[in-house]
């Protein structure tokens, strides 16, 4: 693996030319965590990256440990090598008011309409409108320029879950039943110019479990069917196999050598020479310790075998795959940097 230094411009990534990374995944797979780590990874080495959330959950504020985000771009983290991550929580109603202002100079009317509940009505009665507004705001950030240069080197979207992602991004089809001309229509068209282009890619986050793996396969199929750009697979919470294949097979059958285990445990003083483990809670025998450790090893091996089956299924999808480790201690801002570094080392950013 090549060494990666912040700011090393000679290195190439798997997604050269991509400026919008959409991150989706089944609920509970750590989509927001992965999107945040990816934003940090992309910012590493002096880049400026925007991460947007579109579901109104304030997940980014929680993960970056900052106060709830307004409808404005705020810096939430600095990356190694002078990079910066900005975050934006896109609110569809605010986006519609902004949109009305842009096209009709209707800001005051927009505010009045919102008070009447009309904005809510419009975004509810035509769910496609809501999605056009959310993707439209994201697209605007991707394209925004200042002094001839892009304001953001990359934009990451913490997107809706896998089950809805193709429909969410495919705004053209979504608004097909709506106005055939007019601002929403043209906004949808210009969103598609960015989203269905090499500027964009859609990564799916999964765990190595039955349902998320299945949804990942379904998600890629939906994206391909909609002619949307498919990206990589980020496998989250991977447990490193601690045993080699032979020991793993033995562990699953409970056939590890108990005598060797007992002798080893005594050698390193886990149990006393008289065969006891003692602690504040009481004492247990060497046999109990050995049996307990063996049963835990059996569970571990079972889990690793299950994960391998999931990995095999994912491999059939033939997409670039990145793995992030299971963190027994959980994720905080600190571990987010570790995850970012791991993603970068694997070439996604």
């Amino acid at each position, binding site marked *: 693996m090549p060494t990666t230094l912040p700011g090393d411009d000679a290195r190439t990534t798997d997604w050269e030319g991509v400026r919008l990374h959409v991150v989706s995944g089944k609920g509970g797979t750590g989509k927001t965590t992965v999107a945040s780590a990816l934003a940090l990874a992309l910012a590493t080495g002096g880049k400026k990256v925007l991460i947007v959330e579109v579901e109104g959950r304030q997940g980014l504020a929680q993960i970056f440990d900052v106060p709830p985000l307004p409808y404005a771009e705020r810096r939430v983290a600095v990356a190694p090598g002078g990079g910066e991550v900005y975050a934006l929580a896109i609110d569809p109603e605010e986006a519609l008011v902004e949109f009305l202002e842009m096209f009709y100079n209707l800001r005051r009317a927009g505010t009045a309409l919102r008070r009447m*509940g009309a904005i809510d009505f419009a975004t509810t009665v035509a769910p496609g409108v809501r999605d056009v507004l959310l993707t439209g705001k994201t697209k605007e950030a991707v394209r925004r320029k200042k002094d001839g240069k892009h304001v953001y080197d990359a934009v990451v979207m913490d997107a809706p879950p896998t089950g809805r992602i193709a429909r969410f991004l495919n705004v053209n089809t979504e608004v097909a039943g709506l*106005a055939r001309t007019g601002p929403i229509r043209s906004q949808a068209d210009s969103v598609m110019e960015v989203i269905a282009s090499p500027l964009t890619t859609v990564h799916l986050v999964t765990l190595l479990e039955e349902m998320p793996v299945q949804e990942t396969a379904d998600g890629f199929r939906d994206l391909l069917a909609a002619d949307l750009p498919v990206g990589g697979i980020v496998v989250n919470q991977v447990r490193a196999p601690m045993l080699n294949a032979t020991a793993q097979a033995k562990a699953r059958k409970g056939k590890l050598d108990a005598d060797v285990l007992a002798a080893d445990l005594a050698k390193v003083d886990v149990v006393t020479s008289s065969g006891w483990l003692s602690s504040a809670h009481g004492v247990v025998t060497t046999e109990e310790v050995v049996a*307990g*450790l063996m049963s835990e090893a059996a569970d571990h091996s079972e889990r690793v075998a299950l994960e391998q089956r999931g990995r095999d299924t994912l491999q059939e999808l033939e997409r670039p795959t990145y793995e992030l480790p299971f963190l027994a201690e959980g994720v905080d801002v600190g571990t987010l940097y570790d995850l970012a570094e791991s993603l970068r080392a694997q070439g996604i950013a």
Partner: protein
Amino acid sequence: MNARDVVPRSKNLDIDALLDDRSIRVIVCCGSGGVGKTTIAAALGLRAADRGRDVVVLTIDPARRLAQALGLTELDNDPRPVAGVEGEGSLAAMMLDMKRTFDEFVESNSDPERAATILANPFYQSLSSSFAGTQEYMAMEKLGQLRGKAEADGTWDLIVVDTPPSRSALDFLDAPRRLGSFLDGRFIRLLAAPAKAGGKAYLRVLSAGFGMFTSVLSKIIGGQVLTDVQTFVGSVDTLFGGFRQRADDTFAMLQAADTAFVVIAAPERDALREASYFVERLEADAMPLAGLVLNRVQTTKVPDLDAATATAAAARLEAGKATSVTAALLRIHADRVATLARQKRLAERFTAAHRNVAVAAVPALPGDVADLAGLRQIGASMSVAPDK
């Protein structure tokens, strides 16, 4: 230790007492997405059936293997008997088909001609297949239907409901009403039949704003959509007794004493935060909460060997040696104990804030549930009281 010891100081949720309580007719399983709600709902249903109750489980989106375990090979929107119950009870299971439930609801509430008009309406089609809240509304609708049938012919004496997958558990309570008030709301009625909305004087006051409203709306969503909405509301207006009324009725049903809410969470930060919101909300709305089921709790067979000792011992065994199986086992154990410690911290934070909430726990299993035996194992582990 067993899974329940992750929260030693909390009240015990006695699952068997809950399932044996014949005055309880509905158990609603709530929780955020990805916590194993459907599996727990199925395990509760099977255990209740094994204990002699006649149970129907309404699932929303089961994993393929769980669906197979329940004999749900096709999505046909009707309960199917599940073979393999022990004893006198019975178990039926079904998967919700939201669009079909909506269609049937329309068909059974109007004459064929009118139903056909509604079903063909583009706004109805979008409403019944892709609206936020429709799945929740239809889950409630189906629950109402099952309950009606249970009361009419006594087919079931317990309905276990899984709730739609959503980021927030609160959606199940809020979405139907939100959708109900939207469909029954002032704007939609104004659009449908301005004259009906409250007399001409009212209209005159509103007309300026309303004119701007419709003009901006048709710019945004197009005139056709507005017309579709108007036609739709026009044809359902007197038919449904009001969407909001219907949502309110189901909501009231969930407040009744014969309903029990079981909140499900994994011992993770986000899932427990959602569980907290939900518990507080149930209290605020006087909804009957049975307790919390903590799913996928890490357990250990060697609680007396802590992570630091195990890791240090593993390092000593590895020194000067290429591989050591014993060291690997110690590291597996250390990881497990560390996970357990984190889960315990998170779970105790929840129980400290919600001392009155009874808790049951299910240990993390190495694999997916693939058959009734697996569900039975989960049901049994839920019912274990804490160690003395």
